[in-house]
């Protein structure tokens, strides 16, 4: 790649500088748009539960807000059906309800209309930087939590026990990632380096199945699993993900294994090694980059999968994986943003970590497997 010249804009001197500013400016703007949703979620997940629902997450940054600086006490029982004289201004009751701006920028607003007290508010710099980790405790753990409500009373709530879902997701994901790799590697080796009847037809089947939507297989599979009494178990999900991931795995590994240098394999054959030994000792170690690419791809796919988990595991909270748990939180606690934001971030944690640590492999797998639907 490095030998290819970068496409550089034409022009010299000042034109180039202006170009660079325009390009970087546009790019920065798009990147900002792209990252704001995730930042908002992350920031909110650390805010106090009542703060989240009463002010935007962006108020953690310094901003100007009207704050009460002093109070004015009017004569008790003063009639409100005619304009009042306050601070040398003539204001009506309605204006005091909505807030009346004074020439100096401060604002008059009823503090307690019945007691005839008025707040004088001025714009002040402020930031709602009041962070907590209790949202994470509430959503991760299963025990009871007591918190103080806005009116001062306390309330006890059951935690959401998302740790459990996290373990469930691992239980589903690890076998569903490793099993298809092994089976696919054998098949890819056969397609790449062996001759057998029906090879062309069978490989065409592998390629054809790459884009088949899983929906066409769901109904018969669910019925078959119910017959075998394994629907609702992890086993069902492992089998489904193995079946659905296998065509991509075989295709991806075939592309890689068929490109390995022939000389190495020839030398091994001449030394009298059997194909099985060659596969174990040569092919597998040489294919590690391709195996890793697919492993990451399949890991993300299975971890983030919702439809298959919904159909084959069902809504049972004991077996729910993180996507199911999060979706059910949206359904049952749709306005409890302190739980939703923390829960969503927990569900994203592992894929994001894998993504940033192994981005190179992920991109490579994506390019090799971009035929999958």
């Amino acid at each position, binding site marked *: 790649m490095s030998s290819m010249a970068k496409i550089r804009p034409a022009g010299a001197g000042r034109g180039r500088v202006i170009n660079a500013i325009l390009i970087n400016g546009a790019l920065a703007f798009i990147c900002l748009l792209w990252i704001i949703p995730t930042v908002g979620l992350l920031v909110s997940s650390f805010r106090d539960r009542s703060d989240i629902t*009463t002010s935007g997450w962006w108020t953690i940054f310094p901003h100007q807000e009207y704050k009460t600086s002093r109070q004015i006490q009017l004569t008790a029982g003063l009639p409100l059906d005619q304009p009042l004289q306050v601070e040398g201004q003539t204001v009506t009751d309605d204006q005091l309800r909505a807030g009346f701006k004074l020439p100096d920028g401060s604002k008059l607003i009823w503090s307690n209309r019945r007691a005839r007290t008025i707040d004088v508010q001025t714009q002040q710099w402020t930031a709602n930087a009041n962070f907590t980790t209790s949202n994470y405790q509430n959503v991760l753990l299963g025990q009871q939590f007591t918190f103080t409500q806005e009116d001062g009373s306390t309330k006890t709530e059951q935690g959401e026990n998302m740790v459990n879902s996290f373990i469930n997701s691992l239980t589903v994901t690890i076998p569903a990632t490793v099993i298809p790799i092994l089976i696919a590697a054998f098949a890819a080796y056969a397609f790449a380096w062996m001759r057998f009847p029906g090879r062309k037809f069978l490989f065409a089947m592998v390629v054809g199945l790459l884009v088949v939507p899983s929906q066409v*297989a769901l109904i018969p599979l669910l019925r078959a699993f119910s017959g075998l009494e394994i629907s609702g178990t992890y086993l069902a999900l492992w089998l489904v993900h193995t*079946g659905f991931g296998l065509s991509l795995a075989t295709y991806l590994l075939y592309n890689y294994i068929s490109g390995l240098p022939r000389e190495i394999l020839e030398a091994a054959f001449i030394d009298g090694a059997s194909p099985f030994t060659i596969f174990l000792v040569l092919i597998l170690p040489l294919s590690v980059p391709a195996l890793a690419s697919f492993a990451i791809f399949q890991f993300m796919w299975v971890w983030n999968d919702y439809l298959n988990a919904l159909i084959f595991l069902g809504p049972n909270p004991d*077996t729910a994986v993180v996507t199911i748990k999060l979706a059910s939180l949206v359904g049952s606690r749709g306005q409890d943003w302190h739980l939703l934001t923390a829960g969503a971030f927990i569900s994203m944690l592992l894929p994001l970590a894998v993504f940033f640590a192994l981005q190179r492999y992920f991109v490579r797998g994506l390019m090799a497997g971009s035929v999958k639907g």
Partner: protein
Amino acid sequence: MIQQTREAEVKSAPLPNDQNWSPRQFLIALAALAVVLALMVVGFLYLKGSRGASMFNAVVAIIWGVGGVAALFYTANMLIESLNLKWRNALRPFLFFLPGVAILFLFLTVPTLLTLYQSFFNQDSTRFVGLDNYIATFTDRSMQESFRNNLFWLFLGTGFCVVLGLLIAVLADRSKFETVAKAIIFMPMAISLVGASVIWRFIYAYNPADQEQIGLQNAILVAVGLEPQTWLTLQPWNNLFLILVMIWGSTGFAMVLLSAALKGVPGELIEAARVDGATELQGFFNIVIPYIQGTILTVTTTIAIGTLKIFDQVYVMTGGQFGTSVVGTEFYRQFFTNRNFGYGAAIAIVLFIAISPVLVYNLRQLNKQEGF
């Protein structure tokens, strides 16, 4: 040519005992294979019964699945190696490809055919109804709405992803901050559609006008003096807001692939165009775009298939209500909520038919490939 040499290699390999088979080895291998199979069945029965959440079961599953598959391969190979040369060479490929092919056949090919068969039957598959389910698929009001929405998804979603992805790829290619920018745009790919749904539900969140807005979109609206809106029930625009989530998620995919393709465009080509007096834009549209059209096609079809199959985020964000249903959510509703297997099957087959041109194209490309 290549194929012939490969075959010759296998046959000329000088292996010990090549002519005759050894009955003793054969029996040992057979016994080992039987033991492995028996253990796999025991493991299956154990896993079938395990429903609770535990890392122990995950470990058992890995040993059962990975170890079992490896042991099956190993013992089956022992069995084959104990045979004489002729049988050995004839059977060996099957050991390697048969497990994978058999699983694909059982989990995708056969179920697809069964779904096709069921689509001609009534809801519990007891009575043949001919094409009734397909007629219903194209005449039901709710299905028509889904088709209309899916067309929005197909054209708006795919179009924006590809155009934006290309734009960002071009910008990033000329910037010093390429790596960081690409990581930021690409990052949503790692986030599940359910997670993305929560992120965007928060952006679209609505509070009544007399309260402070906590959703970014409504806060901006209020700041410029407009009324806050309940975006996700605002027909028909709510479809647009759902599609926006998908654009946010999938543009990174388009960008990464297109960016790699852009770097493959030879610099001399662009230089030559420039010497001939072409402007920057002319060079881009007449040289760069045709050069990377293969990648553009791949990216477009991949994202288009994704939009046709879309389910997760619609189901999580609106449940397919308020005029946002798509084929994926209708399939789920017929299949799960209404338990109408025939109708659900017909919808799945229609989805399959919509995607099948890509399948045909892929097979044609394969046919052109060397060695096949």
